[in-house]
């Protein structure tokens, strides 16, 4: 049968890529920018991560390179949408296509090679505790880092002055400009953070979850991350819930499939999407940032 502790431990691993990408996109959208290129930035992170990890022979170099790679790609989006005023939706879609193609090009020589992976932490007696030991003290470090990023984002948006300015820019960019805030700079920083997070999420796939490189390995995870941001009403803790819920149902249905339950496979495969959407909709969707997706022109 299915062991609940093991299930939860593996759902945390399954959810981390989406969680990382989604928390980055949450910050981007709170600043008023809609970046549909999450999928492209994730997969760029995945290939940068595995390439750097193999070269330096440590997964940490991979994660660093993935964050830098994702951020660089997102800065291309920032250049196009913030400086050249291109349409955010079209540019985001183009970024996804570009990222998929770029990663496939770089990835040609990396397919089927195993990358150096992260070890799970081992705190001796604590990790050996029944049930909670494996859950709380036996994950790999990136799981903890992703949770720290969620908590940090929450605190940043809620308590810091910079977070308040970021929310203000996303809520009403004209008013923020009139008060003397640099709308483009704030948004560019948010976009770069979003790119770095998406890159980390991609690297987690290629370095921990799978862990090797295959073409198109993100398989829509970026789109799920985008959807979770909306259904979580742009709030970090709800986003954590949504991501873990999605990951949990994914792991559960895989276990059920493996266990040979008499439920058609199609229903099992669609279940994570349906359950996540249902739960987050029932929790009552919130209001989008006021300037989300609108192009900002500084007028005279």
């Amino acid at each position, binding site marked *: 049968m299915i062991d609940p502790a093991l299930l939860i431990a593996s759902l945390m691993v399954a959810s981390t890529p989406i969680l990382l990408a989604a928390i980055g996109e949450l910050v981007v959208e709170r600043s008023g920018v809609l970046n549909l290129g999450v999928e492209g930035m994730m997969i760029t992170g995945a290939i940068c991560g595995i390439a750097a990890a193999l070269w330096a022979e440590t997964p940490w170099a991979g994660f660093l390179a993935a964050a830098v790679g994702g951020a660089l790609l997102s800065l291309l989006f920032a250049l196009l949408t913030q400086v050249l005023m291109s349409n955010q939706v079209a540019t985001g879609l183009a970024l996804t296509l570009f990222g998929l193609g770029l990663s496939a090009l770089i990835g040609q020589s990396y397919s089927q090679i195993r990358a150096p992976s992260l070890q799970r932490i081992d705190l001796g007696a604590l990790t050996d505790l029944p049930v909670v030991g494996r859950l709380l003290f036996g994950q790999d470090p990136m799981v903890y880092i992703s949770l720290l990023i969620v908590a940090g984002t929450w605190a940043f948006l809620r308590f810091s*002055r910079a977070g*308040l300015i970021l929310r203000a820019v996303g*809520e*009403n960019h*004209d008013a923020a400009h009139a*008060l*003397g*805030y640099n709308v483009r700079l704030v948004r560019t920083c948010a976009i770069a953070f979003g790119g770095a997070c998406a890159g980390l999420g991609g690297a987690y796939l290629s370095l921990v979850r799978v862990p090797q490189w295959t073409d198109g390995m993100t398989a829509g995870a970026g789109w799920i991350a985008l959807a979770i941001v909306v259904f979580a009403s742009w709030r970090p803790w709800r986003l954590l819930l949504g991501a873990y819920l999605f990951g949990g149902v994914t792991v559960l249905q895989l276990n059920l499939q493996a266990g040979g339950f008499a439920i058609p496979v199609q229903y099992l495969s669609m279940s994570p999407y349906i359950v996540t959407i249902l739960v987050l909709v029932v929790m009552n969707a919130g209001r989008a940032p*006021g300037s989300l997706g609108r192009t900002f022109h500084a007028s*005279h």
Partner: protein
Amino acid sequence: MSDALLRLDGVTKAYPGVVANADVSMTIRPGEIHALLGENGAGKSTLVKAIYGLVTPDRGRMTLMGRPYAPHDPHAARAAGVAMVFQHFSLFDALTVAENVALGMEDPPPFRTLAARIREVSETYGLPLDPFRTVGDLSAGERQRVEIVRCLLQDPKLLIMDEPTSVLTPQEVAILFETLRKLSAEGTAILYISHKLEEIRALCESATILRLGRVVATCDPRETSARAMAEMMVGGSLHVPARDRAEPGAVVLRIEGLSAASPRAFGTSLKDVRLEVRRGEVLGIGGVAGNGQDELLAALSGEMTAPRGLIFFEDHDVGPMGPDARRALGLLAAPEERNGHAAAPGMSLTENAALTGRVREGLTRRGFLDWGRARGFAASVIETFDVRTPGTETAAGALSGGNLQKFVIGREILQRPEVLVVNQPTWGVDASAAAAIRQALLDIAERGAAVVAISQDLDELMEISDRFAALNEGRLSPPRPAAGLTVEEIGLMLGGAHDMDVAHV
């Protein structure tokens, strides 16, 4: 003058194709309430933006308290003691009052201290505010208090106010003026921009008048008539709309107890609205924005249909009819918001003329548009209403506000309406264009049409209306004859001061 707080010397700012400010010099003394007057496009906004650091002048010098002053952004202006309350509120709906205030300050204290200071300052100046409420839930008057308190917390030497009273009821205006006089007595200078000349006469001690970017006159508003100031702004004599008041004719439009939910989110529902309009009559409907004006217009124009038996045009039950059917009968409407609602900004004037004139002007032939006639119709609107445009094929959005407004009102008037419903007919339009639009409305009433004029500009309604009614939270007050109504009576009809009390001043 050594006692000047702010001095401007030859400030000039040009944009491609237009000089917004040409060699503007003026002086503001400490504690003075100084009015800045001018038509739309006279350069008032550019000038105050230069003072607030949003615009850098091409030439000229500014001196604040004897020191050279050249703010390169609003942070620098605020640090120097200049604060500004914006015409279109610069507030963030989803944030709380305290967060909004913190965003407008250079170095905000921790939130608990800030909340206490907001309470303290707002009580001192008679503008009570709860720091923890979300701004999106506040009324227009309360939102403006947030802006003012945000400025006051920084002890400004100079407070700039851009059209602060356009969204307030008369009672709220009275409270605001008390606050401003108190500030002025404490030594804060106020630079006050408004189109409402009577308010300026009541409040301000001196005035600088701009026309086409230049200072054309300075005067003491307390000793100058509103008409004289208006003529200085326009640079010629001002036409005051007039007509012979005829006996009203038969009832042509009737609403019998219409209640309807607003089609928009956050809109105001109409509640048991009753009205009757006679031929030859102008019914003025006043009210603070967001009290059901847009919904009433939609219900009359046919954008929002109603069940049978509620809205009658002569003997026709027009409730279930859409706009085209109502237009065919002679019930026409010119909505507010010329860019987007009354006109499609990206389409040419010909196309915009065809959009509403199709039915009554016969601009279609066997289902196809007759562009020749549409162009002719657009040209006649342009000619009759003196719309300044290069031609009929210019995009509507390229016209200035006043010109486009003349076009959208003229387009309806030339279709010989039996009943014309207008919402905000002169919003953001300068004095001479506004006078022309009002005269046109009076002219069609004289020819026997009925006019329903919905507006937030009470002076305008008093000028053109035979009867006056007020919309308050979706309810329409019983109409009263406009002649002889006092400001206090109108204020009470509008719903008083919306829980604002003058008590703590």
